[in-house]
């Protein structure tokens, strides 16, 4: 038993050194040699796969470990390993490769001034693709701007995406939205907000609605590591935990917000996955560049949701290989060759390796496929451009259109303003 001094509260300043502010700093800056030794990586196959009806507290450790399935030879290991059908794997690889070709083409179009803006998913393709492959028609995704994989995994027509990026005549959003802030209801793709994190709680609300109605649909929410600092990350987690909403809450930790690294969002002092524990939500930390791990963890989470066992929170560990957007220049704040040293590799390379190991893919076919997809994207982009681009519209959009869909019925003041406009 300690002995307590009654005037502890009188301790003078001299008893303590002056305080100072800790500001997290990434290990490396431009010019430094990339160093990822701080990323905690579990051995392949080392993490157990729990039952679906587990409680958050029972699997605390999974929030600090990392679910990994493929070893360095592409061979699946451990309890999370599934022997996936060739068909699924082909579908996945195709989707991931097509995303990469699409991104490349759309980056180029933006540089040519054909659109105002673009954002790539380079290096993160496995995550959205793997998750979409476990979803069903009727489920709803609430994505950020880096989940084009949800669409590609459904073989969604790239033309529909491109015309939105070009804001041209065929854009389903009528030019209203910034490129890549898609809305495709039929594909279960909720209208993407430009405001970060707001849709996490909406995904939870949507899932609650399904439960309220006694339906069977589930939702997925998406957020970035940087955006977890936002308010609505918290409200989403609180509501999901309290009402046990049938939702998969995804957090893509690609190590960077724009110029600030994940430490500025709290990634220095704990794993993001561990955020789920306090909300009583079973939480996983998963290698997001390992397609087999992505698929298995997504499937586990989807099964929990469908069986009314509540939400699952998943931190996908990956790396934002590209610039944040076409407005960003990462060479200003991180080593140029960072991605080459990223310890979890390239998700496409890793899936390719697995498929070659399984015997239904080869380097040659890979090269062929890549050429084919790049071709496809070139041809489709040209076609899309024939419907106009942002600054070279095919037909001038009527300015009156902007007054539509503010409300279901246009109120008098909007009619008056439209008239003033003289259109």
């Amino acid at each position, binding site marked *: 038993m300690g002995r307590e001094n009654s005037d502890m509260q009188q301790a003078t300043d001299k008893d303590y050194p002056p305080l100072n502010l800790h500001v997290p700093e990434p290990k490396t800056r431009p010019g430094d040699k990339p160093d990822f030794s701080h990323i905690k990586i579990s051995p392949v196959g080392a993490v157990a796969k729990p039952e679906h009806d587990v409680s958050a507290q029972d699997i605390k450790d999974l929030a600090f470990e990392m679910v990994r399935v493929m070893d360095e030879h592409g061979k699946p290991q451990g309890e999370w390993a599934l022997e996936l059908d060739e068909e699924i794997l082909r579908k996945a690889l195709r989707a991931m490769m097509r995303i990469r070709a699409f991104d490349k083409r759309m980056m180029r179009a933006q540089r040519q001034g054909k659109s105002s803006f673009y954002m790539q998913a380079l290096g993160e393709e496995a995550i959205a693709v793997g998750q979409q492959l476990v979803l069903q028609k009727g489920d*709803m995704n*609430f994505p950020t701007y880096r989940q084009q994989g949800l669409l590609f995994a459904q073989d969604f027509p790239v033309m529909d995406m491109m015309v939105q990026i070009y804001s041209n005549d065929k854009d*389903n*959003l*009528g030019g*209203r*939205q910034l490129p890549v*802030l898609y*809305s*495709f*209801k039929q594909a279960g793709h*909720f*209208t993407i*907000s430009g*405001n970060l994190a*707001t*849709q996490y*709680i*909406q*995904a*939870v*609300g*949507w*899932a*609650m*609605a*399904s*439960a*309220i*109605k006694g339906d069977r649909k589930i*939702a997925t929410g998406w957020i970035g590591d940087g955006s977890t600092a936002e*308010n*609505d990350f*918290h*409200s*989403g987690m*609180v*509501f999901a935990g*309290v009402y046990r909403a049938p939702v998969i809450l995804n957090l893509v930790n690609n190590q960077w917000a724009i110029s600030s690294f994940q430490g500025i969002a709290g990634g220095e002092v704990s794993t993001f996955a561990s955020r789920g524990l306090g909300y009583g939500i079973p939480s996983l930390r998963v290698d997001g560049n390992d397609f087999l791990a992505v698929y298995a963890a997504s499937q586990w989470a989807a099964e929990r949701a469908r069986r009314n066992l509540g939400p699952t929170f998943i931190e996908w560990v990956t790396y934002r290989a590209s610039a944040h957007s076409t407005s960003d220049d990462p060479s200003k704040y991180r080593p140029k060759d960072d991605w080459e040293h990223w310890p979890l590799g390239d998700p496409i390379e890793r899936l390719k390796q697995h498929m070659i190991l399984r015997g239904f893919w080869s380097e040659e076919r890979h090269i062929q496929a890549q050429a084919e997809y790049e071709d496809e994207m070139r041809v489709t982009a040209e076609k899309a451009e024939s419907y106009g681009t942002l600054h070279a519209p095919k037909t001038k959009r009527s300015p009156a259109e902007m007054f*539509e*869909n*503010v*409300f*279901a*019925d246009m*109120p*008098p*003041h909007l009619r008056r303003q439209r008239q003033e406009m003289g259109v």
Partner: protein
Amino acid sequence: MDGARDIKMNSKTKSMSMIESIRDAHDVMMGRDDNVVVFGEDAGFFGGVFRCTEGLQQKYGKHRAFDAPISESGIVGAAVGMAAYGLKPCVEIQFADYMYPAYDQIVSEAARLRHRSNGEFTCPLVVRMPVGGGIFGGQTHSQSVEALFTHVVGVKTVMPSNPYDAKGLLIAAIEDPDPVIFLEPKRIYNGPFDGHYERPVVPWSKHEKGMVPEGYYAIPLGKAAIAREGREVTVLTYGTMVHVALAAAEETGIDAEVIDLRTLVPLDLEAIEASVKKTGRCVIIHEATRTSGFGAELSALVQESCFYHLEAPVLRVTGYDTPYPHAQEWDYFPGPARVGEALTKIMEN
């Protein structure tokens, strides 16, 4: 009857306070439409701190009327997701003063879903919140926040002044295909209040607008009501201030036409124009702070549309540009004396 839809001539009426008529509107709509769900802080088992949702959980089940975490942004955010799913959430913010955490979800999300998705996703939800002072609630239980919504494109803003309107407007709001902010002047929950705080409280049972039809009826959003016809000056107002304006007209003997706007966005500009062109004078009254209050918009609109008919400057009587003080509540509140002065002054011009 103010353009109300669907009231059978022989509808039975019942004396109701505004709390009861709001509760009844919920009840009617939950009965008619399984997609209507209600939640908010203390709104489930207990029925809300003002008891506007009392009994709904017991009647319709926990999955349709439930308590929410103390997270206004979560409440509205979840409601946005539910509305997009196809439900019709009608949520309660405990006091308007606490709506700020939800402001982002309202402005950036609810208000914009339809437009940004070009009509693919919609957001039919109602956000109810008590507004206004007069209950010694201090600066955080007294605010009038309407102007913070009228500036937001994509939401409608409604404020009833009596039980009859409250029920009909709330039903219309729940039926509306777009987000509606439904502001409830808490000072008149239990009775009309004309600003004479020194006099005994009058209950709604003593007021004709406290007789409320049973069952379904809707008062269309966007239509004002003439609370008092008059020829000398037009008073534009809403909520509690309608009763203050009526008292001031009575007390000054000035033949004011008192227009109860009921819906601020969309606004019934037609009714306003017709009245101001008739009277040539206009006084605007609201309890909210003055600068950039909704009175500014009304003043601008009146002078834009009736400039050549105006015989005197449009006047505003409003709360002062200070937080709502606790002990000095009645100095702050724009009561019948201040309104009367404005009426008198405008008639001198």
